[in-house]
């Protein structure tokens, strides 16, 4: 439904295209320069890519929460990053207790599973509370109203955690889990001059597994069918006997569970937990969701991995300061929304009006 703007020359369109062209040229130029320069070997890019895939898996899992909720309610759950933070934070107390009692060392697999379960539960509880208190009364309000509410909720959750648990940084304990002689959680291995951390593979695989599970749930089960029906048309679905409230609650719960799991995985290699840790991954995951086409489940997965890879490799590839990592994510978001507002996979952004 793109409409042409005006018959004669459209200045704004020109300006936008010009900006796009300049950025494209810059990227190509820096890319060629870096690759020709040959400062970095293949191993640099390989290790960046491995990290990027793990990070991308995290983004993808969080992005699914945005996309699921957007698909059904057409609202951006701005506080989703705080759901991710909340689960990770609560689970920290569990894993720290396991660490003190020695359970983490004696039985790491069980301890981690319990930690992940805690995080998922905590995230789900937070999300359901949020939906019940803040979002449900506003379901038929103009679109900006729930967005502002979500910003408020995000702020509230961050500072509630700060108030309850203090300002200090919590650090996830070191964990080790040996499978076939390899420490798949805490190990670092030097393979041909390249440092490899198996945890990145573990995170990547876990993320993919969770996504597959979600995919099956949405495509194959009755509940998934109800979700898709509500996404298509709330009122008709309600007429067909689907309990819309229940589906909305389930959607929030699913998204939150994925975010909670992602949080523990993130903390296993990133270690640090603070009350503000949800903000940046939240925004980036939103970017990933938009990249893939918001409302589109495979799109969120693809977008997440793409963003993870882009973020880890672009600074080197383009010869930029690694401080500018976040600019890449935000820049991608802006560029995608300008040039392909429907995302990579191009899900229909159903506008209710027009």
């Amino acid at each position, binding site marked *: 439904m793109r409409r042409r703007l005006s018959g004669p020359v459209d200045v704004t369109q020109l300006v936008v295209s010009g900006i796009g062209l300049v950025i494209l040229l810059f990227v190509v130029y820096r890319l060629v320069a870096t690759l020709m320069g040959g400062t970095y070997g293949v191993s640099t890019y390989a290790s960046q890519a491995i990290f990027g895939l793990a990070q991308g898996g995290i983004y993808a899992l969080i992005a699914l929460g945005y996309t699921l909720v957007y698909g059904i309610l057409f609202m951006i759950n701005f506080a989703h990053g705080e759901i991710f933070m909340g689960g990770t934070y609560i689970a920290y107390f569990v894993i720290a207790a396991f660490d003190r009692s020695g359970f983490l060392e004696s039985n790491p697999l069980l301890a981690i599973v319990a930690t992940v379960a805690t995080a998922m539960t905590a995230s789900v509880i937070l999300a359901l509370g949020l939906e019940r208190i803040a979002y449900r009364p506003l379901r038929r309000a103009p679109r900006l109203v729930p967005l502002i*509410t979500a*910003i408020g*909720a995000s702020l509230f959750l961050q500072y509630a955690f700060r108030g309850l648990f203090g300002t200090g940084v919590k650090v996830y304990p070191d964990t080790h889990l040996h499978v076939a002689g390899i420490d798949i959680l805490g190990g670092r291995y030097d393979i041909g001059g390249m440092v490899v951390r198996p945890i990145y593979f573990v995170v990547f695989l876990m993320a993919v597994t969770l996504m597959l599970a979600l995919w099956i749930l949405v495509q194959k089960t009755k509940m998934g069918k109800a979700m898709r029906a509500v996404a298509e048309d709330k009122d008709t679905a309600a007429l067909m006997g689907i309990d819309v409230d229940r589906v909305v609650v389930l959607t929030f719960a699913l998204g939150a569970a994925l975010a909670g799991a992602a949080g523990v995985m993130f903390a296993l290699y990133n270690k640090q937990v603070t009350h503000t840790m949800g903000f940046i991954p939240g925004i980036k995951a939103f970017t990933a969701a938009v990249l893939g086409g918001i409302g589109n489940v495979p799109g969120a997965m693809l977008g997440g991995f793409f963003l993870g890879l882009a973020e880890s490799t672009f600074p080197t590839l383009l010869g930029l300061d690694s401080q500018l990592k976040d600019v890449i994510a935000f820049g991608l978001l802006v560029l995608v929304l*300008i040039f392909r507002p429907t995302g990579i996979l191009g899900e229909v952004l159903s506008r209710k009006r027009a």
Partner: protein
Amino acid sequence: MLKRSLRRGALVGGVLVFIALIGAPAAFAREPVVRGVVTLSQLLLAIGALLAGSGAAPATRTRSTGAVVAAGAIAGAVCMLLLALLALLVSAVDLRQVLVNATPQLVDELTLGRGVVTGSTVLVVLGTVLGALGGWSTRLPAAISRSAVLAGAAVVVVGVLRDKGLAIAEAVALGVAVWAVAYGRSRWGSALATRYQRVQRRNSTMVSIVVWIAGLFILLGLPSILGTYGTSVLDLVGLYVLMGLGLNIVVGYAGLLDLGYVAFFTIGAYVTGLLTSPAASTQLGLSFWIAWPLAMVAAAGAGALLGIPVLRMRGDYLAIVTLGFGEIIRILVLSDTFKSVLGGAQGIIEIPGPSIGSFTMMRPQHFYYLILIGVMIVVFVSRRISDSRVGRAWMAIREDEDVAEATGVNLVKYKLLAFAMGASFSGIGGAIFASWVHSVFPNSFTLLVSINILSLVIVGGIGSIPGVILGAFFLVGLPEVLRSFADFRMITFGALLVAMMIARPEGLWPAKSRRRELHLEVAE
């Protein structure tokens, strides 16, 4: 009815437990309201019990007074029982590993310093009494109870603002006086208002001139009344009013939710820094009076430029993209890439204050007048423009973009105009800020500033000029004055945003049109 009491008591009790665990009682214990009698933290508990009691009373008037009082008492008791249990738990188990505020001091505060067992009992008894009082208060005529709430609020605010709290006699006198005025107003207020209106209509220009002159004198005299600290708080409020009114144009008039608004404040501040500071990379050392308009123009230009790519985006996308812009600008300013020009994390220092002849503005009192001029200009422009062809075009875009366009409004032109004008206000504020604090650092310009501004616009009343000013006083001025409150500022903002959107989306002081909407609903 019992169920309602229990639920209400548990709800308020739960909220109080949460408030206790984020550390409010300990912080508020340092705020005596009535000297030697009651602190803010004790009042917090008392207010909770009163609310639980009044909320437990059924809405209908069918129940007897006794039943209502009983319902209130039960709710109050339940509410305080939860807190007593919390005190018991905290004193028995050391939870500080997890909950940082579960300290012995908290137990002390909750049990009123009387030891766990006695204190808990006292707490529950007090809760029962206050809850009963709250329940009973619902049977009073609205005029009386509302005036009482107002009187109580006045005593609390004044007591907190006074360093050592009020003396008992002062508190009683103030409470009674406010109560009497409020009660009188609600009884005879409308008659007075019509009298006033009649006077006003008869010689309207005279009255409005007198009001304006009086207002101007008060505004001009404020710094000498408030002293240095008070004036510097006022300066901060003024800066936020400037920015709030700018954002109000973008969000309130044109309906474009901009979360990266701080970017233009940053640009205004940095342009001023670069142009005026002899220590900046540019070494221009120009006068503030040259830099000021340039900062404004630069911010407006940036507003229009950043507006171009987002022209076709709607609502929530626009919000996130502008948020992205705000962050990009902050990261770029902070980065080593532009360090040679913008100074990276070290920012720009030695920014001189504005000078007139040989006089250089240094003290908050001086800046007060500068900010006052800025605010007056911005208020004037906002008012004029809201009531013009441009303002109508913006509001039409806010109401329905497609229809506005089909009615002949050029969306490109008016959206960019809104972005540019909103940004220019922020640029004015940024320039004053830079010369006021004599330096600019990238970390002064975080997303939280944008959210602060958005909060005050929304809480005050979106699209409403007096609303924005009120919002700035509430959300910026009050936390600045209530130092013990500072730690709870952001969490309150968050809760306020949610609560306002659910309960009162039009804000504390709604814009004209929205108030009209409400009035009509009442009239119907």
